[in-house]
Protein backbone atom coordinates (compact mmCIF):
# COMPACT_ATOMS: atom_id res chain seq x y z
CA UNK A 1 0.00 0.00 0.00
CA UNK A 2 1.37 3.43 -0.89
CA UNK A 3 0.18 6.62 0.80
CA UNK A 4 -2.58 8.39 -1.09
CA UNK A 5 -2.94 12.12 -1.47
CA UNK A 6 -4.84 13.76 1.38
CA UNK A 7 -8.50 14.26 0.58
CA UNK A 8 -11.21 15.93 2.67
CA UNK A 9 -12.31 13.41 5.27
CA UNK A 10 -15.71 11.82 4.80
CA UNK A 11 -18.10 11.48 7.73
CA UNK A 12 -17.60 7.71 7.71
CA UNK A 13 -13.82 8.02 7.86
CA UNK A 14 -14.12 10.63 10.62
CA UNK A 15 -16.40 8.45 12.74
CA UNK A 16 -14.27 5.35 12.21
CA UNK A 17 -11.01 7.12 13.04
CA UNK A 18 -12.51 8.69 16.15
CA UNK A 19 -13.79 5.31 17.31
CA UNK A 20 -10.38 3.74 16.70
CA UNK A 21 -8.62 6.48 18.61
CA UNK A 22 -10.92 5.85 21.57
CA UNK A 23 -9.43 2.34 21.70
CA UNK A 24 -5.86 3.67 21.77
CA UNK A 25 -5.79 4.33 25.55
CA UNK A 26 -5.89 0.57 25.99
CA UNK A 27 -2.33 0.50 24.63
CA UNK A 28 -1.38 3.04 27.30
CA UNK A 29 -3.08 0.89 29.95
CA UNK A 30 -1.24 -2.16 28.65
CA UNK A 31 2.16 -0.49 28.78
CA UNK A 32 1.36 0.84 32.28
CA UNK A 33 0.60 -2.70 33.45
CA UNK A 34 3.76 -4.01 31.82
CA UNK A 35 5.85 -1.28 33.49
CA UNK A 36 4.33 -2.11 36.85
CA UNK A 37 4.63 -5.87 36.52
CA UNK A 38 8.26 -5.74 35.46
CA UNK A 39 9.19 -3.64 38.49
CA UNK A 40 9.53 -4.89 42.05
CA UNK A 41 6.55 -5.41 44.37
CA UNK A 42 7.73 -2.77 46.84
CA UNK A 43 7.52 -0.13 44.09
CA UNK A 44 4.31 -1.30 42.38
CA UNK A 45 1.91 1.40 43.63
CA UNK A 46 4.41 4.16 42.88
CA UNK A 47 4.95 2.71 39.40
CA UNK A 48 1.26 2.60 38.52
CA UNK A 49 0.53 5.99 40.09
CA UNK A 50 3.47 7.30 38.10
CA UNK A 51 1.91 6.03 34.89
CA UNK A 52 -1.30 7.89 35.71
CA UNK A 53 0.65 10.99 36.61
CA UNK A 54 2.55 10.84 33.30
CA UNK A 55 -0.72 10.74 31.36
CA UNK A 56 -2.10 13.68 33.32
CA UNK A 57 1.05 15.80 33.08
CA UNK A 58 1.51 15.20 29.37
CA UNK A 59 -2.16 16.02 28.66
CA UNK A 60 -1.96 19.33 30.51
CA UNK A 61 1.44 20.40 29.21
CA UNK A 62 0.68 19.33 25.64
CA UNK A 63 -2.60 21.26 25.71
CA UNK A 64 -0.94 24.39 27.08
CA UNK A 65 2.27 24.43 25.05
CA UNK A 66 3.07 21.31 23.03
CA UNK A 67 0.10 21.36 20.68
CA UNK A 68 1.05 24.84 19.51
CA UNK A 69 4.61 23.77 18.69
CA UNK A 70 3.33 20.68 16.89
CA UNK A 71 1.45 22.95 14.54
CA UNK A 72 -1.64 20.96 13.66
CA UNK A 73 -3.92 23.81 14.76
CA UNK A 74 -5.23 25.95 13.24
CA UNK A 75 -5.79 25.09 9.62
CA UNK A 76 -4.86 21.96 7.79
CA UNK A 77 -1.89 19.74 8.72
CA UNK A 78 1.29 21.32 7.49
CA UNK A 79 -0.29 24.74 7.34
CA UNK A 80 1.50 26.32 10.25
CA UNK A 81 5.22 26.28 10.85
CA UNK A 82 8.48 28.20 11.15
CA UNK A 83 10.43 27.76 7.93
CA UNK A 84 13.99 28.63 6.94
CA UNK A 85 15.49 28.24 3.51
CA UNK A 86 18.63 26.25 2.78
CA UNK A 87 19.96 25.37 -0.66
CA UNK A 88 16.77 26.71 -2.18
CA UNK A 89 14.55 24.34 -0.20
CA UNK A 90 12.14 25.20 2.61
CA UNK A 91 12.92 23.50 5.94
CA UNK A 92 9.84 23.55 8.14
CA UNK A 93 11.36 22.87 11.56
CA UNK A 94 8.87 24.05 14.19
CA UNK A 95 5.10 24.31 14.38
CA UNK A 96 3.40 27.63 14.85
CA UNK A 97 -0.10 26.70 15.94
CA UNK A 98 -2.31 28.40 18.47
CA UNK A 99 -1.59 28.02 22.17
CA UNK A 100 -4.10 26.64 24.71
CA UNK A 101 -5.82 24.65 21.94
CA UNK A 102 -7.38 27.79 20.52
CA UNK A 103 -9.55 27.11 17.52
CA UNK A 104 -9.83 23.38 18.18
CA UNK A 105 -13.61 23.27 17.82
CA UNK A 106 -13.56 25.14 14.53
CA UNK A 107 -10.63 23.23 13.04
CA UNK A 108 -11.12 20.79 10.16
CA UNK A 109 -12.08 17.24 11.12
CA UNK A 110 -8.68 15.84 10.21
CA UNK A 111 -6.84 18.41 12.34
CA UNK A 112 -9.03 17.60 15.34
CA UNK A 113 -8.35 13.90 14.98
CA UNK A 114 -4.64 14.56 14.46
CA UNK A 115 -4.57 16.47 17.71
CA UNK A 116 -6.36 13.66 19.55
CA UNK A 117 -3.87 11.17 18.12
CA UNK A 118 -0.97 13.31 19.33
CA UNK A 119 -2.58 13.79 22.75
CA UNK A 120 -2.53 10.03 23.25
CA UNK A 121 0.84 9.55 21.57
CA UNK A 122 2.65 11.96 23.88
CA UNK A 123 1.28 10.11 26.92
CA UNK A 124 2.58 6.82 25.57
CA UNK A 125 5.99 8.36 24.82
CA UNK A 126 6.29 9.55 28.41
CA UNK A 127 5.43 6.14 29.91
CA UNK A 128 8.39 4.48 28.20
CA UNK A 129 11.25 6.14 30.15
CA UNK A 130 9.21 5.80 33.35
CA UNK A 131 9.28 2.02 32.96
CA UNK A 132 13.04 2.02 32.47
CA UNK A 133 13.60 4.10 35.57
CA UNK A 134 11.52 1.74 37.73
CA UNK A 135 12.50 1.20 41.35
CA UNK A 136 14.75 4.27 41.58
CA UNK A 137 13.20 7.15 39.60
CA UNK A 138 11.37 9.67 41.81
CA UNK A 139 7.77 10.50 41.01
CA UNK A 140 8.57 14.21 40.78
CA UNK A 141 11.39 13.50 38.37
CA UNK A 142 9.10 11.30 36.25
CA UNK A 143 6.56 14.11 36.03
CA UNK A 144 9.27 16.63 35.13
CA UNK A 145 10.55 14.30 32.39
CA UNK A 146 7.01 13.89 31.06
CA UNK A 147 6.49 17.66 31.08
CA UNK A 148 9.72 18.23 29.18
CA UNK A 149 8.84 15.61 26.60
CA UNK A 150 5.32 17.00 26.13
CA UNK A 151 6.42 20.63 25.98
CA UNK A 152 9.49 20.47 23.77
CA UNK A 153 10.78 17.20 22.38
CA UNK A 154 7.62 15.43 21.28
CA UNK A 155 6.13 18.53 19.57
CA UNK A 156 9.37 19.03 17.68
CA UNK A 157 9.51 15.46 16.36
CA UNK A 158 5.74 15.24 15.78
CA UNK A 159 5.86 18.43 13.74
CA UNK A 160 8.68 17.11 11.58
CA UNK A 161 6.87 13.83 10.95
CA UNK A 162 3.13 14.49 11.07
CA UNK A 163 2.48 18.20 10.60
CA UNK A 164 4.20 18.98 7.34
CA UNK A 165 7.67 19.33 8.85
CA UNK A 166 10.91 18.82 6.97
CA UNK A 167 10.95 15.03 7.39
CA UNK A 168 7.45 14.73 5.97
CA UNK A 169 8.52 16.97 3.08
CA UNK A 170 11.55 14.89 2.07
CA UNK A 171 9.52 13.51 -0.82
CA UNK A 172 8.48 16.93 -2.13
CA UNK A 173 11.82 18.67 -1.59
CA UNK A 174 14.31 15.91 -2.38
CA UNK A 175 12.28 13.31 -4.30
CA UNK A 176 12.71 10.73 -1.53
CA UNK A 177 9.63 8.57 -2.00
CA UNK A 178 6.62 9.99 -0.16
CA UNK A 179 8.78 11.61 2.52
CA UNK A 180 9.22 10.04 5.92
CA UNK A 181 6.38 7.60 6.68
CA UNK A 182 5.39 6.77 10.24
CA UNK A 183 1.77 5.68 10.32
CA UNK A 184 1.55 4.42 13.90
CA UNK A 185 4.05 6.57 15.75
CA UNK A 186 7.10 4.31 15.70
CA UNK A 187 9.43 7.32 15.53
CA UNK A 188 7.46 10.00 17.36
CA UNK A 189 6.33 7.71 20.18
CA UNK A 190 8.45 4.60 20.46
CA UNK A 191 11.91 5.55 19.25
CA UNK A 192 11.63 8.88 21.04
CA UNK A 193 10.44 7.10 24.19
CA UNK A 194 13.11 4.41 23.91
CA UNK A 195 15.92 6.93 23.44
CA UNK A 196 14.55 8.92 26.38
CA UNK A 197 14.65 5.68 28.37
CA UNK A 198 18.31 5.26 27.48
CA UNK A 199 19.05 8.80 28.62
CA UNK A 200 17.16 8.25 31.89
CA UNK A 201 18.96 4.97 32.58
CA UNK A 202 22.33 6.55 31.86
CA UNK A 203 21.63 9.51 34.14
CA UNK A 204 19.87 7.69 37.00
CA UNK A 205 22.22 4.70 36.99
CA UNK A 206 21.36 1.08 37.79
CA UNK A 207 19.31 -0.18 40.71
CA UNK A 208 21.26 -0.79 43.89
CA UNK A 209 22.67 -4.30 43.87
CA UNK A 210 22.06 -4.82 40.15
CA UNK A 211 25.75 -4.81 39.27
CA UNK A 212 27.63 -6.05 42.35
CA UNK A 213 31.34 -5.54 42.89
CA UNK A 214 32.04 -9.13 42.03
CA UNK A 215 30.44 -11.45 39.53
CA UNK A 216 27.77 -10.95 36.90
CA UNK A 217 24.71 -8.75 37.21
CA UNK A 218 22.05 -9.77 39.71
CA UNK A 219 18.71 -10.90 38.29
CA UNK A 220 15.92 -8.66 39.64
CA UNK A 221 12.86 -10.25 38.02
CA UNK A 222 9.55 -8.46 37.64
CA UNK A 223 7.11 -9.08 40.47
CA UNK A 224 3.94 -9.95 38.55
CA UNK A 225 4.01 -11.84 35.24
CA UNK A 226 0.20 -11.76 35.10
CA UNK A 227 0.18 -7.95 34.93
CA UNK A 228 2.81 -8.10 32.21
CA UNK A 229 1.05 -10.65 30.03
CA UNK A 230 -2.40 -9.15 30.49
CA UNK A 231 -0.85 -5.81 29.62
CA UNK A 232 0.31 -7.36 26.34
CA UNK A 233 -3.26 -8.37 25.47
CA UNK A 234 -4.60 -4.92 26.32
CA UNK A 235 -1.82 -3.36 24.28
CA UNK A 236 -2.86 -5.33 21.20
CA UNK A 237 -6.33 -3.78 21.22
CA UNK A 238 -4.92 -0.31 21.62
CA UNK A 239 -2.29 -0.88 18.96
CA UNK A 240 -4.91 -2.00 16.47
CA UNK A 241 -6.75 1.25 17.04
CA UNK A 242 -3.57 3.28 16.83
CA UNK A 243 -2.15 1.70 13.68
CA UNK A 244 -5.42 1.75 11.77
CA UNK A 245 -6.25 5.31 12.81
CA UNK A 246 -2.70 6.32 11.90
CA UNK A 247 -3.08 4.75 8.47
CA UNK A 248 -6.13 6.96 7.86
CA UNK A 249 -4.61 10.13 9.30
CA UNK A 250 -0.97 10.03 8.27
CA UNK A 251 -0.86 7.64 5.28
CA UNK A 252 -4.28 8.71 3.94
CA UNK A 253 -5.17 5.06 3.35
CA UNK A 254 -8.59 4.29 1.86
CA UNK A 255 -11.04 2.51 4.15
CA UNK A 256 -10.70 -0.70 2.14
CA UNK A 257 -6.99 -0.89 3.02
CA UNK A 258 -7.56 -0.79 6.76
CA UNK A 259 -8.23 -4.50 7.39
CA UNK A 260 -4.78 -5.28 5.95
CA UNK A 261 -3.23 -2.81 8.40
CA UNK A 262 -5.00 -4.56 11.29
CA UNK A 263 -3.95 -8.00 10.04
CA UNK A 264 -0.36 -6.80 9.68
CA UNK A 265 -0.37 -5.55 13.27
CA UNK A 266 -1.51 -8.91 14.61
CA UNK A 267 0.90 -10.82 12.38
CA UNK A 268 3.88 -8.74 13.41
CA UNK A 269 3.17 -9.26 17.11
CA UNK A 270 2.47 -12.96 16.57
CA UNK A 271 5.65 -13.54 14.59
CA UNK A 272 7.63 -11.68 17.25
CA UNK A 273 6.31 -13.64 20.23
CA UNK A 274 6.70 -16.95 18.38
CA UNK A 275 10.33 -16.10 17.63
CA UNK A 276 11.05 -14.97 21.20
CA UNK A 277 9.33 -18.08 22.55
CA UNK A 278 11.57 -20.27 20.38
CA UNK A 279 14.76 -18.36 21.17
CA UNK A 280 14.24 -18.35 24.94
CA UNK A 281 13.23 -22.00 24.95
CA UNK A 282 16.32 -22.91 22.97
CA UNK A 283 18.61 -20.88 25.24
CA UNK A 284 17.11 -21.54 28.68
CA UNK A 285 15.23 -24.82 28.18
CA UNK A 286 11.89 -23.12 28.91
CA UNK A 287 10.22 -20.06 27.43
CA UNK A 288 10.70 -16.89 29.46
CA UNK A 289 7.42 -15.07 30.17
CA UNK A 290 8.78 -11.57 30.56
CA UNK A 291 11.01 -11.84 27.49
CA UNK A 292 8.09 -13.24 25.48
CA UNK A 293 6.06 -10.21 26.59
CA UNK A 294 8.90 -7.97 25.47
CA UNK A 295 9.01 -9.79 22.13
CA UNK A 296 5.26 -9.32 21.64
CA UNK A 297 5.60 -5.63 22.39
CA UNK A 298 8.60 -5.29 20.06
CA UNK A 299 6.50 -6.82 17.27
CA UNK A 300 3.74 -4.30 17.95
CA UNK A 301 6.24 -1.43 18.01
CA UNK A 302 7.76 -2.53 14.70
CA UNK A 303 4.26 -2.76 13.23
CA UNK A 304 3.66 0.88 14.18
CA UNK A 305 6.09 1.87 11.47
CA UNK A 306 5.12 -0.45 8.70
CA UNK A 307 1.68 -2.05 9.24
CA UNK A 308 0.10 0.38 6.78
CA UNK A 309 2.81 -0.10 4.17
CA UNK A 310 3.87 -3.75 3.96
CA UNK A 311 2.10 -6.96 2.92
CA UNK A 312 1.05 -9.56 5.51
CA UNK A 313 3.99 -11.86 4.75
CA UNK A 314 6.42 -8.97 5.04
CA UNK A 315 4.78 -7.96 8.30
CA UNK A 316 5.27 -11.47 9.66
CA UNK A 317 8.94 -11.28 8.68
CA UNK A 318 9.30 -7.90 10.41
CA UNK A 319 7.79 -9.37 13.56
CA UNK A 320 10.02 -12.46 13.51
CA UNK A 321 13.17 -10.34 13.21
CA UNK A 322 12.00 -8.14 16.10
CA UNK A 323 11.23 -11.23 18.15
CA UNK A 324 14.64 -12.80 17.51
CA UNK A 325 16.51 -9.58 18.30
CA UNK A 326 14.63 -8.72 21.50
CA UNK A 327 15.87 -11.41 23.93
CA UNK A 328 19.41 -11.21 22.55
CA UNK A 329 19.57 -7.43 22.90
CA UNK A 330 17.99 -7.43 26.37
CA UNK A 331 20.74 -9.81 27.46
CA UNK A 332 23.44 -7.82 25.67
CA UNK A 333 22.39 -4.55 27.29
CA UNK A 334 22.33 -6.03 30.76
CA UNK A 335 25.28 -8.39 30.75
CA UNK A 336 27.72 -6.76 28.34
CA UNK A 337 26.83 -3.07 28.41
CA UNK A 338 25.88 -2.64 32.10
CA UNK A 339 22.57 -0.96 31.28
CA UNK A 340 19.86 -1.65 33.85
CA UNK A 341 16.55 -1.36 32.00
CA UNK A 342 13.86 -3.17 34.04
CA UNK A 343 11.14 -2.85 31.41
CA UNK A 344 13.39 -3.59 28.42
CA UNK A 345 12.15 -0.36 26.85
CA UNK A 346 15.40 0.49 25.11
CA UNK A 347 15.31 -2.76 23.18
CA UNK A 348 11.57 -2.97 22.69
CA UNK A 349 10.74 0.64 21.83
CA UNK A 350 13.97 2.15 20.50
CA UNK A 351 15.41 -0.82 18.62
CA UNK A 352 12.02 -2.29 17.66
CA UNK A 353 10.89 1.09 16.37
CA UNK A 354 14.09 1.70 14.41
CA UNK A 355 13.81 -1.74 12.84
CA UNK A 356 10.20 -1.06 11.86
CA UNK A 357 11.14 2.26 10.27
CA UNK A 358 13.92 0.60 8.32
CA UNK A 359 11.63 -2.24 7.24
CA UNK A 360 9.05 0.26 6.01
CA UNK A 361 11.72 1.71 3.74
CA UNK A 362 12.92 -1.69 2.58
CA UNK A 363 9.47 -2.98 1.65
CA UNK A 364 7.85 0.25 0.41
CA UNK A 365 7.32 0.10 -3.36
CA UNK A 366 8.10 3.75 -4.13
CA UNK A 367 11.65 4.70 -5.16
CA UNK A 368 13.67 6.68 -2.62
CA UNK A 369 11.56 5.65 0.35
CA UNK A 370 14.40 3.71 1.97
CA UNK A 371 16.63 6.79 1.88
CA UNK A 372 13.87 8.90 3.45
CA UNK A 373 13.56 6.39 6.27
CA UNK A 374 17.37 6.30 6.71
CA UNK A 375 17.56 10.10 6.95
CA UNK A 376 14.84 9.99 9.60
CA UNK A 377 16.67 7.28 11.54
CA UNK A 378 19.82 9.43 11.34
CA UNK A 379 17.81 12.34 12.74
CA UNK A 380 16.47 10.32 15.64
CA UNK A 381 19.86 8.89 16.58
CA UNK A 382 22.06 11.83 15.76
CA UNK A 383 19.94 14.75 16.84
CA UNK A 384 17.13 13.59 19.11
CA UNK A 385 19.19 11.33 21.40
CA UNK A 386 21.87 13.95 22.19
CA UNK A 387 19.16 16.60 22.59
CA UNK A 388 17.16 14.43 24.98
CA UNK A 389 20.28 13.52 26.94
CA UNK A 390 21.29 17.18 27.26
CA UNK A 391 17.81 18.25 28.39
CA UNK A 392 17.55 15.42 30.90
CA UNK A 393 21.07 16.07 32.18
CA UNK A 394 20.11 19.69 32.84
CA UNK A 395 16.78 18.63 34.36
CA UNK A 396 18.60 16.26 36.69
CA UNK A 397 20.48 19.26 38.10
CA UNK A 398 17.17 20.86 39.04
CA UNK A 399 15.05 17.82 39.94
CA UNK A 400 17.18 14.88 41.04
CA UNK A 401 16.10 11.80 39.11
CA UNK A 402 17.25 9.20 41.58
CA UNK A 403 15.82 8.49 44.98
CA UNK A 404 18.25 8.35 47.92
CA UNK A 405 19.71 5.01 48.95
CA UNK A 406 17.41 4.69 51.95
CA UNK A 407 14.37 5.16 49.73
CA UNK A 408 15.65 2.54 47.34
CA UNK A 409 16.23 0.12 50.20
CA UNK A 410 12.73 0.36 51.69
CA UNK A 411 11.05 0.60 48.29
CA UNK A 412 9.47 3.45 46.38
CA UNK A 413 5.99 2.73 47.73
CA UNK A 414 6.89 3.27 51.38
CA UNK A 415 9.35 6.05 50.64
CA UNK A 416 7.22 8.12 48.27
CA UNK A 417 3.64 7.10 49.10
CA UNK A 418 3.89 5.97 52.72
CA UNK A 419 2.24 2.62 52.02
CA UNK A 420 2.79 -0.45 49.90
CA UNK A 421 0.75 -1.85 47.01
CA UNK A 422 0.32 -5.17 48.84
CA UNK A 423 0.11 -4.27 52.53
CA UNK A 424 -0.85 -7.76 53.70
CA UNK A 425 2.11 -9.39 51.96
CA UNK A 426 5.41 -10.07 53.67
CA UNK A 427 8.15 -8.36 51.71
CA UNK A 428 11.32 -10.43 51.80
CA UNK A 429 14.61 -8.90 52.80
CA UNK A 430 16.67 -8.06 49.77
CA UNK A 431 19.64 -10.41 49.65
CA UNK A 432 21.55 -8.16 47.30
CA UNK A 433 22.12 -5.58 50.05
CA UNK A 434 24.16 -7.95 52.21
Amino acid sequence: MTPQAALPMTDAAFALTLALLLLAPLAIAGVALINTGLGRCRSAAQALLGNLAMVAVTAIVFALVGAALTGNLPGTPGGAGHVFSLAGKPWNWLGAGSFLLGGLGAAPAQSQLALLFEFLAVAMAALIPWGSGADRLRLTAGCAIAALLAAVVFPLVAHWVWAGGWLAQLGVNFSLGDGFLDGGGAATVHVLGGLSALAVVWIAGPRKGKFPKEGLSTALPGHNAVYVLFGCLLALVGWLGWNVAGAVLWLHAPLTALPVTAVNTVLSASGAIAATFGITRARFGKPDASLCANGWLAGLVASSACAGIVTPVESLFVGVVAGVATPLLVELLELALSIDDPSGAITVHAVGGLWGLLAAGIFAPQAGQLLAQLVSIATLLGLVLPLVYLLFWLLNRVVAFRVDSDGERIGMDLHELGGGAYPEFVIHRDESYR
Partner: protein
Amino acid sequence: MKYAGLLVMPAGFFLSIAALVLFSAPAQRAAFVLCGLAVECLGLVVAVRGHMEARGENRR
Protein backbone atom coordinates in the same frame (compact mmCIF):
# COMPACT_ATOMS: atom_id res chain seq x y z
CA MET B 1 34.02 9.70 27.07
CA LYS B 2 30.24 9.42 27.13
CA TYR B 3 29.95 13.12 26.33
CA ALA B 4 32.46 12.83 23.52
CA GLY B 5 30.36 10.08 21.98
CA LEU B 6 27.19 12.12 22.31
CA LEU B 7 28.94 15.07 20.65
CA VAL B 8 30.02 12.94 17.71
CA MET B 9 26.45 11.82 17.00
CA PRO B 10 25.15 15.19 15.73
CA ALA B 11 28.11 15.25 13.31
CA GLY B 12 26.66 12.14 11.70
CA PHE B 13 23.27 13.80 11.48
CA PHE B 14 24.69 16.87 9.74
CA LEU B 15 26.57 14.61 7.35
CA SER B 16 23.28 12.98 6.38
CA ILE B 17 21.61 16.36 5.87
CA ALA B 18 24.58 17.59 3.85
CA ALA B 19 24.13 14.61 1.56
CA LEU B 20 20.62 15.79 0.68
CA VAL B 21 21.71 19.34 0.02
CA LEU B 22 24.97 18.70 -1.83
CA PHE B 23 24.12 15.74 -4.04
CA SER B 24 21.30 14.97 -6.40
CA ALA B 25 22.35 11.49 -7.55
CA PRO B 26 20.62 8.80 -5.45
CA ALA B 27 23.77 6.67 -5.12
CA GLN B 28 25.90 9.53 -3.79
CA ARG B 29 23.15 10.58 -1.42
CA ALA B 30 22.74 7.06 -0.13
CA ALA B 31 26.48 6.65 0.39
CA PHE B 32 26.73 9.87 2.40
CA VAL B 33 23.63 9.14 4.44
CA LEU B 34 25.08 5.73 5.29
CA CYS B 35 28.36 7.39 6.25
CA GLY B 36 26.41 9.73 8.52
CA LEU B 37 24.70 6.77 10.14
CA ALA B 38 28.07 5.07 10.58
CA VAL B 39 29.43 8.15 12.36
CA GLU B 40 26.37 8.15 14.62
CA CYS B 41 26.89 4.46 15.43
CA LEU B 42 30.52 5.22 16.23
CA GLY B 43 29.43 7.98 18.59
CA LEU B 44 26.91 5.67 20.22
CA VAL B 45 29.56 3.00 20.72
CA VAL B 46 31.90 5.56 22.33
CA ALA B 47 29.09 6.76 24.60
CA VAL B 48 28.23 3.21 25.64
CA ARG B 49 31.90 2.45 26.30
CA GLY B 50 32.07 5.57 28.45
CA HIS B 51 29.03 4.39 30.38
CA MET B 52 30.59 0.95 30.90
CA GLU B 53 33.84 2.45 32.17
CA ALA B 54 31.95 4.63 34.61
CA ARG B 55 30.01 1.62 35.86
CA GLY B 56 33.26 -0.33 36.25
CA GLU B 57 34.76 2.44 38.38
CA ASN B 58 31.64 2.50 40.56
CA ARG B 59 31.92 -1.23 41.15
CA ARG B 60 35.49 -1.05 42.37
